[in-house]
C-alpha cells in the first residue's frame, strides 16, 4: 500500500523542477528542526528495540490483574490493558518487531529490486525489456493483495509478513536503480573510465553504484516507513505475529474490544506508529533534498 509515496517523494530528484525562490528562503529554518526531530524519534525507537529494559521496568507479557484497564498515569504512561499489562512497556518492547520487520522488508526490496534494476540497466536490450515488464506486473497488483498472496504462500508470522511487505517494494527499487544506472552510464566520467581500460564490473562497482547511492538511500528510508505501516496493517489483520507478542498493529487490534471505555489502548500505540513513519518519511525527504541541492 505504498507505491504512491516513492513516486511523489522522488519526483523532485529527477525533475529538477524550477521552484519559486521566495517560499524556499522562508522555509529554510523549518526543515532543519523537523529533520532533527525525526532523527531523534528514530534514534529513540531504535534504542527501545535494542534495550527495552532501559526505558521501562514493567513486564510486557505478565500483567497485574489488580491494575487492569487503568488510564494513563505517572505509573503507567500509556495506561494498562485488560489483563493489567503496562501498555507503554508493551509498545517499547514491540518496537523490536516493527523495526526488524521494517529492516527485513527494506532488505528484501533493496537486494532483489536493485539486482533487477542494475542488471536491466547495464545489459539493456531484450533483458531490460523483459525485466521491466516483470516490474510492471508487480506494480499492477495492489500492494496489500500482493502481500497477502505472499503470506498465503509463506504462512503467518512476523518474518513472513516482513518478507511479504518487502516484495511489494521490489518494483520501486528496480525502477529507481535502473534509471540511475542508465543515467550514470551516460555520464562523461563513466565513458572515461571505460576509455581508460576499465572493465565492466569494476566500473559498475567503482563509479555507477556509488553515484546512484543517494536516491536509493532516500527510497530505502521511505520504504522503511511504509514497511512499518504495512507490517502494522498485516499485524492488525492477524497475519503477523501471534497474540501475546506486543507487535504494534496487534496491540491496536486487541484494544478494539475496549473501544468504548479505554481509548488509550488503541490511540496511543497508533500515535507511536504515526510518529515513526512520519520521521522515516521526513528523513527520506531530507536525503533527496540534500541531493537536489548539491546537483
Amino acid at each position, binding site marked *: 500500500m505504498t507505491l504512491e509515496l516513492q513516486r511523489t517523494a522522488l519526483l523532485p530528484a529527477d525533475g529538477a523542477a*524550477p521552484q519559486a525562490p521566495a517560499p524556499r528562503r522562508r522555509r529554510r529554518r523549518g526543515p532543519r528542526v523537523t529533520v532533527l526531530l525525526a532523527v531523534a524519534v528514530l534514534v529513540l525507537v531504535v534504542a527501545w528495540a535494542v534495550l527495552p529494559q532501559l526505558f521501562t521496568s514493567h513486564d510486557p507479557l505478565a500483567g497485574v490483574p489488580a491494575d487492569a484497564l487503568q488510564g494513563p498515569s505517572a505509573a503507567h504512561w500509556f495506561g494498562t490493558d485488560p489483563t493489567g499489562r503496562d501498555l507503554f512497556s508493551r509498545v517499547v518492547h514491540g518496537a523490536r518487531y516493527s523495526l526488524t520487520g521494517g529492516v527485513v522488508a527494506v532488505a528484501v526490496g533493496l537486494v532483489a529490486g536493485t539486482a533487477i534494476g542494475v542488471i536491466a540497466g547495464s545489459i539493456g536490450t531484450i533483458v531490460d525489456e523483459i525485466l521491466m515488464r516483470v516490474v510492471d506486473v508487480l506494480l499492477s497488483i495492489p*500492494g496489500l493483495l500482493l502481500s*497477502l498472496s505472499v503470506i*498465503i*504462500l509463506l504462512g503467518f508470522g512476523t518474518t513472513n509478513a516482513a518478507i511479504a511487505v518487502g516484495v511489494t517494494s521490489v518494483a520501486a527499487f528496480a525502477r529507481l536503480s535502473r534509471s540511475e544506472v542508465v543515467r550514470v552510464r551516460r555520464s562523461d566520467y563513466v565513458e572515461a573510465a571505460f576509455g581508460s581500460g576499465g572493465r565492466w564490473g569494476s566500473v559498475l562497482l567503482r563509479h555507477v553504484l556509488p553515484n546512484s547511492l543517494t536516491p536509493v538511500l532516500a527510497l530505502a528510508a521511505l520504504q522503511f516507513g511504509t514497511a512499518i*505501516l504495512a507490517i502494522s496493517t498485516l499485524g492488525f489483520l492477524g497475519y503477523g505475529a501471534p497474540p501475546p507478542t506486543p507487535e504494534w498493529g496487534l496491540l*491496536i487490534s486487541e484494544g478494539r474490544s475496549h473501544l468504548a471505555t479505554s481509548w488509550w489502548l488503541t490511540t496511543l500505540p497508533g500515535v507511536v506508529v504515526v510518529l515513526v513513519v512520519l520521521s522515516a518519511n521526513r528523513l527520506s525527504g531530507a536525503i533527496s533534498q540534500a541531493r537536489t541541492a548539491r546537483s
Partner: protein
Amino acid sequence: MTYALGRVASAAGVLLAAFTVAFLLLQALPGDAVMIRFENPELGLSAEQIASVRESYGADVGLLAQYWHSLSGFLGGDLGFSVASGAPVRTLLGSAIPSTLLLAGLGFVVAALLAAALAFGAILSPSGWLANVLRSLPSLFVSVPVFWLGIVLIQIFSFRLGLISVIRPGPLEALILPVLTLAVPISAPMAQVLVRAIDDVQAQPFITVVRSKGAGEAWILLRNVLRNAALPALTIAGVLLGELIGGAVVTETVFARFGVGRLTADALDAQDIPVLQGIVVLAALAFVVVNLLVDLVAPLIDPRLKRRVHA
C-alpha cells in the same frame, strides 16, 4: 490509432503476465486446499471419492494443463469455484463488488475534494504559516495507518460525541466514517502531486505574463494553472487505484462491512486459492484498464503529448 492499439496490446500483455504470476505464486503453495477440506476423516470419504472431487476441481492434472484450463476459464469469464464454500468465484465476487465499489468510489470523490481543498488552500492562503501547515498535512496523512484512523474516528464520532450510531446505523450513516477513513490517506498523494504541479506551472514565464496583464491569483489558478497541472495529477491515477483497493480491504475489516475485503480475509483464512486468485487478477485488470484510460486520455488533455506520439 497505432498508439492506442499499441497501448491496448501492452496492457493485455501485463494482464496476462499478472495472471501467470498469480497462478504460479498460488499454485506453488505447499498446502492443498482440496485435501484440507475433504481429507477430514469425519466426512467419511473414500480415496476414490476424494480423487473424483480433485478431478472436479481440476487438481489432478499437471501444472501446465491446470494453467491452460484456468486461463481459458478466465478469458471466458469463468473464475473457477471456491474451495471453501463450493460457490462459483464469479458469484462471490459479483456479490461483494458493488459494496466495495460504492465505498471506493465515494472515498475517491471525497479524497479528490479534500486534496483540492488542501492544495488550493496552501496556494491561495494569505499567511505563510497557514500555507506551511496545509502543505505539511499530506505527509502526515500518508503516515497514518488506515485501520487506526478508522478506529480513532469511531472513537471520536461514535463513542465520544455520539453522532454516529455504532449499533445498526442507517445505510447512509454507516458509510460516513468508512468513506472518511479511506479518503484521508488517498487524498495525501493527490494533494502532494497537485501542489507540486501547481508550483511548477506557476514558476513558468507564461504565468508571469498573465499576472502582469492584471489577472488575479484565483483567476490564474483556475484558468491557467489548473489545466496545466491536471496531467501530473492524472498520471498517479493507477497508483491511487491500488491504494484504494488495499484501503478498502482494511476499511471493510475495521467497520465489519461486507465486500471484497471480507472476501479476501476469508479466502486467506481458508487457503481458498481460486477466490484469492480471482481477486488479484481482477485488481490487476482494474489497474491496467485505469492506466490504459489515462494513457489514452492524456494526449487529449495535453496536445504536446499528441505531437510526441505522432513523431
